[in-house]
């Protein structure tokens, strides 16, 4: 049975620390602003590749951006 734990992220905090808009982050990652918005709001669960690209854009490890919420 797949793990149903929701994927949580701190993209908003990391963006705020860098004074980035969603469009700025989208530009760094190479996706649309809508994609960043839906990932940030946990509406869309990104692939491993996209999660790694987002983490790379922030210059941090992926687990510092995304983690599974403790049950």
């Amino acid at each position, binding site marked *: 049975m797949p793990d149903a734990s929701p994927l949580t992220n701190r993209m908003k905090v990391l963006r705020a620390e860098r004074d980035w808009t969603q*469009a700025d982050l989208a*530009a760094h*990652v190479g996706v*649309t*602003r809508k994609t960043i918005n*839906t990932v940030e709001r946990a509406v869309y669960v990104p692939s491993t590749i996209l999660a790694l690209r987002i983490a790379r854009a922030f210059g941090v490890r992926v687990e510092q951006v995304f983690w599974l919420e403790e049950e």
Partner: protein
Amino acid sequence: MREEVSVESQERVDRIDRSRVTALKGFVASYVLWQVTVLSDEFLGHRLEGLPADTLFWLALALGVSWLAFGARHAWIGRKISADPALARALDDERTRHIRGTAYAAGFWSLGAFLIAVRLVALAVPIPGALVAQLGIAVALASAIIAYLVLDRG
């Protein structure tokens, strides 16, 4: 290594994305209205009193032309996106592909539900096969595009 999109390019990405959504909204709206008018003309035309002759025909023609124009605009935007690798990566990203797949599934299941409903109605009332075929295509296409537009809101 994958190239990043500049902030200026990101504004262009957003602009093209908005144009794509607008074209798709126009496409589905004119398609639905066109189909309603065509089917009204074909199956109810002689029963609609008070309308000047051929009103529905000319209305259907205008809506059909509008549908084609929105379709051409959407195709033109698609070609513009394909021609630029950075645009193509941004505007055809994994979320877009994901919601496109979900929208196709929505169209498929809508068609299935429509056919089941038609089958049940046909037990009581005879329904022309041509009407079922045309309505089925309309239901599948419109529901797939509407599902895409709903899922694409970000």
